[in-house]
């Protein structure tokens, strides 16, 4: 193999970017050619020297500018306004998968049970309701005309016209 045309191959070999056949070619040639061996040594050494060359760290003001810009960009991104409807839906679907089905069902049962349990407490007790009805029946005027609930005092004779009076008053 001639030295001519070997330059590119030597460079690729120094980068370990040759095929196995090319590598074998280079190694066989360099074993017998001092000039190419030297050339390969220079390539390897310059590569190593370039890799270890010092470079200044990113200036602090540059990093700060980039951080601020990144924060602004993230805040402006649609992702930052929370998951989309589709994402929320798929999250729900995964939550309702068979793995979580039992836990979900149990929680729903307990919630409904608690709701029903609370209902009688919120309603007026039956005995209170009956006694109020009895009171109302006893106090009701015999004329058949009902006083307005909550009205007190003696029933006037023209009580039956209360409604009419009210209407005319208005």
């Amino acid at each position, binding site marked *: 193999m001639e*030295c*001519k*045309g*070997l*330059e*590119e191959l030597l*460079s*690729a070999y120094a*980068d370990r*970017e040759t095929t196995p056949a090319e590598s074998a070619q280079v190694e066989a040639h360099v074993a017998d050619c001092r*000039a*190419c061996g*030297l*050339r390969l*040594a*220079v*390539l390897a*050494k*310059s*590569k190593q*020297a*370039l*890799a270890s*060359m*010092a*470079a*200044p*760290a*990113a*200036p602090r003001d*540059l*990093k700060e*500018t*980039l*951080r601020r*810009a*990144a*924060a*602004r*960009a*993230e805040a402006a*991104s*649609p992702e930052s306004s929370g998951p989309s409807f589709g994402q929320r839906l798929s999250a729900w679907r995964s939550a309702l998968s068979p793995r979580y089905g039992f836990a979900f069902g149990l929680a729903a049962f307990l919630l409904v049970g608690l709701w029903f349990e609370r209902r009688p407490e919120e309603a007026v007790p039956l005995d209170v309701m009956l006694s109020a009805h009895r009171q109302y029946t006893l106090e009701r005027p015999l004329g058949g005309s009902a006083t307005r609930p909550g009205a007190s005092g003696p029933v006037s004779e023209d009580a039956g016209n209360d409604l009419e009076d009210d209407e005319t008053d208005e």
Partner: protein
Amino acid sequence: MLQRFVEEYSDSAFTFAYRLCENVEEAKELVQEAFFRLFKSWDHFDQSQPLEKWFLTILKNVYVDSVKKFDRRNMVPLDMPVRHEDGEGVSIAETIADERDEAVLDMLERRESEGHLKAALAGLTKEHRAILALCDMQGLGYDEISRVLGMPMGTVRSRVSRARTALREGLLKRTAGMVAYGV
């Protein structure tokens, strides 16, 4: 995610940019531009893809723009043969057989080699410096460089080789100077 990316990559991006231009202010401009382009197109980023590769593509675009912007006058086609100052072309046989490689090797092994390397790098074209920055300083493989620069791997291989030949020429000049001054 963006903020984490800034924390992780701003230093290496700056190092790369600095190696391209050897100028802090210019490197800052390059890095800012690359990150701002990344932020601007963030919504179009396919998050199933690696972010680093996407950033490299953006960096490549910034690099291409910067070459146009900063070094238009000094641009030399990469296919141009390496020449001595006297205008004579250097044949590959001459280059390979050059015994001065021993002197270059000796210089590279010295502690002060970094200064010589920097000077030799400064004499390269922007394209040569960029490809050496990617290959030797950043440690990217030919496939990664081909993605960054948008060129076939075969082209990357030949351009890396040409850039190294140019760098070696620069170093040879310096060793010649050292010999002349008895360093």
